[in-house]
């Protein structure tokens, strides 16, 4: 395999290397902050970043125009939990491999788990806050079935409380509406779509309407959404690799060849690494050694197996 290592980096590889070096500076974990333990009280409001708000309205509208548009869909919400409020900073879609119908949705959690690892590279304080799901009809409130499941699930969350959004397509159509508005503190409407927000604490017998407000900020997972189908396809193997290889890092890329995910696995020598570039149509392997970037002529779409075969080849040559 290594006989076929290409020693001369092409312009494309140089671009990739420069991109990688740029990203190393930007993907360092944020500085940890000292803190006293947070005393979690009942949530009084949820803050959505404008990025998260856009994602929900845009992807709900997009979902309704697709072939499976009459099914339920949804997103897991990641963000920061404070004592009495939460800030939603990332959305993880249900995925194309979700199990769904007009009456239910079960998310593909494999891709969401990997996405959470990627997103949390930027801030290790991010936690799971709750779930948004849609109803094809006009039920603007979580159902009794939701209550049974969520009532147990919230025990897994900080403060034993979750945030739940319900998307419906029964908002009033206002000709030319250019921005969202809130007919009630816990409701957002735009272009005929409506999101109604609730909270549920462990032991409570009903959801509470939760006032929602907007602040400026990103959807930290949005760059992954264009890549989501590919992420779902590789998720289990990527996650296994991440758990087995200490120090593995992710970088989301987008260039003229489309979106991609770059995995970097450090080797024993400082600065050396194996890199795997995952794109919708291919998986490529690279070796970063002594400051040179080498492309490996090694074709294996199973990411973990490909990495271990490459490592075995390197070990045999050491």
């Amino acid at each position, binding site marked *: 395999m290594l006989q076929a290592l290409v020693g001369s980096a092409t312009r494309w590889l140089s671009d990739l290397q420069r991109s990688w070096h740029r990203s190393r500076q930007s993907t360092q974990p944020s500085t940890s902050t000292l803190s006293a333990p947070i005393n979690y009280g009942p949530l009084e409001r949820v803050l959505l970043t404008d990025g998260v708000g856009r994602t929900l309205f845009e992807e709900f509208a997009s979902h309704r125009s697709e072939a499976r548009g009459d099914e339920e869909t949804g997103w897991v919400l990641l963000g920061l939990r404070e004592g009495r409020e939460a800030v939603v900073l990332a959305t993880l879609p249900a995925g194309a491999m979700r199990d769904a119908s007009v009456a*239910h949705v079960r998310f593909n959690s494999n891709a969401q788990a990997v996405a959470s690892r990627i997103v949390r590279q930027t801030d290790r304080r*991010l936690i799971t806050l709750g*779930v948004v799901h849609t109803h094809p009809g006009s039920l603007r409130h979580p159902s009794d079935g939701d209550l049974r499941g*969520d009532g147990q699930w919230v025990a897994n969350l900080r403060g034993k409380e979750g945030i739940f959004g319900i998307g419906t397509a029964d908002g009033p159509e206002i000709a030319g509406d250019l921005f969202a508005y809130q007919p009630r503190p816990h409701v957002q409407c735009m272009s005929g779509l409506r999101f109604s927000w609730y909270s549920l604490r462990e032991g409570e017998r009903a959801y509470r309407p939760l006032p929602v407000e907007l602040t400026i900020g990103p959807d930290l997972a949005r760059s992954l959404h264009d890549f989501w189908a590919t992420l779902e396809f590789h998720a289990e193997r990527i996650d296994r690799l991440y758990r087995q290889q200490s120090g593995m890092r992710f970088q989301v890329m987008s260039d003229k060849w489309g979106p991609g995910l770059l995995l970097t696995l450090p080797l024993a020598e400082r600065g050396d690494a194996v890199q795997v570039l995952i794109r919708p149509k291919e998986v490529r392997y690279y070796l970063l050694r002594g400051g040179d970037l080498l492309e490996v002529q090694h074709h294996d779409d199973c990411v973990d197996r490909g990495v271990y075969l490459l490592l075995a080849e390197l070990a045999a040559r050491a």
Partner: protein
Amino acid sequence: MDFRPLNDTERRQLINALRGNAESDRAILMDRRDTSFLGTTEEVTDEEVISAIKSVPCHY
């Protein structure tokens, strides 16, 4: 070499930090100048986040 005893608050914080490190892999921060205990962080483990994601129930 100074052997100053910890006061009650410092002792409680250190014990909580050690417990968080042992049970949840939370980082313990150290002053780089004198290696004294600085506190803990708000970091949350991947396991906590992913456990919640994997256990999201079916919604109706």
